[in-house]
């Protein structure tokens, strides 16, 4: 009985630690809403830690292709990710006209991209700035030395 309790507590603690780690690393949040009768409504949260795991699972040739195209910009991604964490809340880019509005902002080390279009389509994406760095690392790893 005591052995079972120990195993249960061990599993519980591991799960709790994993949940804590996932929360600490942050989540990627994607919300898409179309303001029409049969419009799509997509809302999901993904732990940011799955990005690096997902890059290991992605088809190698696709990653290599993406890496080849993105390689000149990988150092920029890393620098941007590193620098974004240093700055307080800020609105980096804001473009609006009568019917569209696009906004890129940083808040608490997270990057927010919001787009509202004339057709009533709302897209909101937010992710930890560190994710940019993870993506750069994943692409670099996928095709070293290109």
């Amino acid at each position, binding site marked *: 009985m005591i052995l079972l309790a*120990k195993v249960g*507590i*061990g599993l519980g*603690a591991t799960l*709790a*630690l994993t949940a*804590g*780690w996932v*929360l*600490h690393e942050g989540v990627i949040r994607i919300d898409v809403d179309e303001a029409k009768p049969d419009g799509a409504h997509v809302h999901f949260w993904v732990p940011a830690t799955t990005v690096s795991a997902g890059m290991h699972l992605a088809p190698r040739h696709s990653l290599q292709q993406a890496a080849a195209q993105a390689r*000149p910009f990988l*150092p*920029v991604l*890393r*620098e*941007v990710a*590193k*620098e*974004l*964490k*240093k*700055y*307080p*809340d*800020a*609105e*980096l*880019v*804001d*473009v*609006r*006209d*009568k019917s569209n509005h696009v906004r890129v902002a940083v808040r*608490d*080390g997270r990057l927010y991209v919001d787009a509202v279009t004339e057709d009533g389509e709302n897209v909101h994406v937010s992710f930890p700035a*560190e994710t940019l760095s993870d993506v750069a690392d994943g692409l670099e790893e996928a095709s070293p030395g290109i």
Partner: protein
Amino acid sequence: MKPSLRQFILAAAASLAVNTFAPVPGLAQTQTASSKSDQWIHVRVESKDDGGETVRVNVPVDMAVKVLPAIKHQPLHDGKVRIDNGHMDDVDLHTILDAVRSAKDGEFVTVQSHENDVRVAKSGGYLLIHVTEKNHADKEAKESENAEKHSKHANSRESKVEVKVPMKVVDALLSAGKDELDIVAALRALSSYGDTELVTVKDDDNTVRIWVDSKNVSD
């Protein structure tokens, strides 16, 4: 409860708390640093046409200084922009700059004509360039098929460009040598200045402002 089990639970709870509530590394330290005197470069473009488009960009100068050298895309490399030789063969920017730097404050170039007013001056450590293009709509109107329509507004239309750059920034900009502009050095020099209005462009259709201050949002 056995001591070893209690210790295990305590350790697990402590690790959980630390992992969950620990601040993002570097965030606290840099927020303090950013509150001292970080300069931001702001760009605002406002269009007065029907769409009423507005573009606002706010970038920390320090961030631009760190990110620009990472961009390797012609003509930008290592934070420097290569100037096309074809356009600079007859002009020695460094000699001109030396002359301006050693000169006393005053107006160096003043051109006044029916079409343009141009003024280049040095004042209080700043290089000032003012260009006013007069009646440019008049010219456009003559060239276009809708001459009558445009000419109604011709007299009221003019475009103004005002550039105000600290001389030290100009020095830094030209410090990379011939045929190159050192953007990173210029930004570093710029960050040591306080609030500065760098560029203002105004015409009937658009207003463009580029300025530096310590706020992380546009006005």
